[in-house]
């Protein structure tokens, strides 16, 4: 895992310090009117895009914050936003 991540509290740090928390799927859905399939999709299914995705990371060996960042899954590099511009 040779990447760096930018923690909103600690700044840019070695990727080894973080734990991946999955794609950003939005808040937990309401239980009412939820089919088992929809629930299973929310919990287990991922988009797995080849490109920029918004994702959660936990600064495990640092401040202990959960935060989201945009990362291009093809390069492992963080980007400034959902468009493909690599952070400089």
């Amino acid at each position, binding site marked *: 895992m040779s990447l*760096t991540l930018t923690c909103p509290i600690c700044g840019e740090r*070695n990727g080894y310090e973080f734990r991946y*928390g999955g794609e950003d799927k939005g*808040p937990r859905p309401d239980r*009412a009117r939820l089919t088992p399939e929809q629930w299973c999709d929310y*919990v287990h299914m991922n988009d797995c895009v080849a490109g920029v995705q918004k994702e959660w990371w*936990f600064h495990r060996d640092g401040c*202990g914050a*959960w935060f989201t960042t945009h990362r291009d899954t093809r390069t492992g590099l963080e980007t400034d936003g959902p468009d493909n511009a690599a952070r400089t």
Partner: protein
Amino acid sequence: MNRLTHLPTLRIRPESRRDIHYRGKAHPAAAGDTIATALYANGVRIFGRSLKYHRPRGLYSLDGECGNTTMAVDGVPNVRTETVPARAGMTVKAQNVVGSAERDLLGFMDALSFAMPAGFYYKTMHKPAPVWPLAINRIRKQAGLGAIAPDFEITGVFDELYPRADVCVVGGGPAGMCAALAAAEAGLRVILLEARPWMGGFFDYRAAAHPGGGLLHERARELADQVEKAPTIRVFTSAAMTGAYHDNLITAVQQGGDDDPFDSRYLQIRAGAMVAATGCIERPLLFENNEKPGVMQVGCAHRLARTWGLMPGEKIAFSVGHDLGLEAALDLAELGGRVVCVADIREDGQDPALAAALAERRIPYFKGWVATEAQGRPTLGRAVFSTITGTVQKEFSCDALVASAGFTPVTGPLNTAGAKLAYDNHTGFFLPTDLPPKTHAAGRIMGLQDPLSLETSGRLAGLRAAADCGKRVDDAVRDAEAALASQPGPERGCKLVTAPVKGKKTFICFDEDTTLKNVKQAMAQGFDVPELIKRFTAAGTGPGQGGIPGHNLPLFVAQTQASPDKHPRPTTVRAPLVPPLLAEYAGTNHDMSKRTPVHESQAAAGGKMERIAVWNRARVFSKSKGAKAEIENVRTNVGMLDASTLGKFRIFGPDAVKALQRVYAGDMTKIPSKRMKYAAMCNDDGCLLDDGVIVKQGDAGANDFYFTASTGRAGQTVEWIRYHAKYENWDFHLVNLTDAYGVINLAGPNARKVLEKVADADVSNDAFPFMGYREFTVNQTIPVRAMRLGFVGELSYEFHVPSSWMQALWDVLAEAGAEFGIQNFGLEAQNTLRMEKGHVIIGSESEQRTNLLDLGLGFLWDRNKPEAKTVGAVALRQAEHQKGRLKLVGFRMAEPADRAPKDGSPIVDDRIRGYVCTARYSHALDMPVGMALVEDELTPEGTRLSIFEDGCEGNLIHGEIVSMPFYDPDGKRMRM
């Protein structure tokens, strides 16, 4: 051997002597010697035997570009002796020899080489099929490099370091040093990696004049001095780069020197920008017996003399294709060496001053000539030369033949970084055409040779790297570009690969014993691109990683015009660029573990300490089988357990309850004051993650809670709760107090009698009932949070105290309990005690797919709080009526005389139906009992279980389902 002394370029300190052992004898080495130079100084010429043909091999490059000089050192095979320093007491052994390197009993293999064309093993040994296992056994004995003993354990200190830099410069030659200085001047933090033990590159050992004044080696030391003094440059010498990964992550392995506290060190550098200034190695000249000991490259011969004070031979012949070779011949003559002849591949284009100097010294000098054969046995004694066309021949007696066709840029670092290379007809090099972002190249790797051009190109690359790091250096970059344009550009390179020979014993790859003839055979069979020929002939797949054949193979293939692609194409280079040890990747085994605050007194009391996850815990104290004495003491009297490893947390703030509601299955709005609530956490599949107790602290209205987690789960609890609150913007604080508090479990029917003596509070059954929570002091001093719970099934208290008070409380309780015969109990006793009560331990009685309901803990789930979106609640609802799940049951042995089966034993009929979680002999019940996870059909009481125990040889043992808890089913003893 006599060494040259008083040379300003020497890198040895003969006064600091150490011995290394080889062939049963101590060989003196000087500080600064590598293993290879030390052996050479002691007269060793044959360092080992080759892979297939067992040909003698010796010094060739001095930088470890081939396996010739790999040896076994202190039991470690394949050590590159040209790059590892000679350390006191080392024992060195030659590899791939039967007998000795000088007289190898398998030397006859060389005479059989005609019978082994390219692809020989692939084509002959696979039919009929039974031949292969026999053949492979023979081949493995005869061929291959070093051997390792199966039980060998490496010793040494293997350090690791993960530094950060703005700019990482790879290569500490003139270009690299100038790049580092330029980046440092721009205010950046620089890391410089140099594979050799010192900086200076190909300036370091040369006495030629620098165009800017002085000598090259003087300039090298001047630059090295500046680099060492620059406060923001960190230099790693003896550090060979192993690879570059995306976003400029650079790895290297560093050899420890005399003063380093490690033997080798793995480096992983995160850099903003990279400058590759790795220079050139030499491109071997191919002729008959071109790897005979005594044949060596120009840099090898020159550095032997200038750096280590060792003249490469008594009579030295040269066959070279570049001015550096002429310079070396002159310099060796200057130092007193006898140069018998110099053959120059080039007809013209030489530096006229060098040619004139050779004439002045009356050294026979032949333009357009080349060595065609090395003769002598086992080492060099004579060399044959001819014109390039092969028409006229001459012979010279010599014991060193310095041969080099040209140069090969060391592009491995750029390759692994993702650069594209293309053949350049002027230099004959594969030059980078397309560099990845924030990656630069400088120096000889670009084809430059002129000293000033090298320095300028280094400076330019350093400035461009600085620009990548956001420095405004536009003007300086423009100036450097202009300077470089005015200085000499890349020199035209010699492209000759092979002398006019048939190529039977002309080795294109030493490591794999691949000859020119093998390559021709491969091409005759239709392999027409270097990448395929490499695989068929194995050329370039040895420990040298293509250092010897990497350049010659594509050049040769292109020159034969057999390839569909007429442009030479390099074969792929991959990390690791130099062979690291697995121990170097493994690094120091920092086996870090935690001790509880009463660790010492536990150990002193005879506790058998055992590593459990991150903790050291006492497994047993007594010697009795199955901790019988400890168990009985808790059941009948009173015992004390150190439970400090429990996870302990505080959560507080206006939204603390919302966070608890989210992660705990139960209703966390109903936590009464002065009482504990038992609660469980599930994951989104409803599977049990953790259980523990929660108490309310402070006023009734305060949103302030203290809760416990199981030992194994404590490390993830904060992460888990915050993860599930991440979208909510809730206002709460969560603190991990696991290490800040210790816990003592006081358990047994006499526990209250002990506590009454020391507690400053009424602890009677009415004042402090089962499941109660109290805060009081002990002996007017020690602040205690006391919980009355019954994990072990007796009257039992847990005391949570600040870690600094742990030992004091332990001693107070031990003293108070002395009159009752209080004793320690350990994990083993606790495990049986809780098992008799049917209390689960997560991970013992549960696995990944075990949910709350499977364990019979459904009462911990409150299904009426949908607004909390409780983790696992949806899945529990869905699994409620699911068939085929494994359920937790209790069982006893069908034959009371049977012993308890081993934990983990499968439960079978015609297939596996479950497994035993924990089973122990219960002293309280006087029979073995256990808990198992079984398919739901097997759960009714009385069902017979067939248990397959490891090693039972088909004799199944049988159990019978009984109700749980086994011991004190009504729980009266916990409440007494």
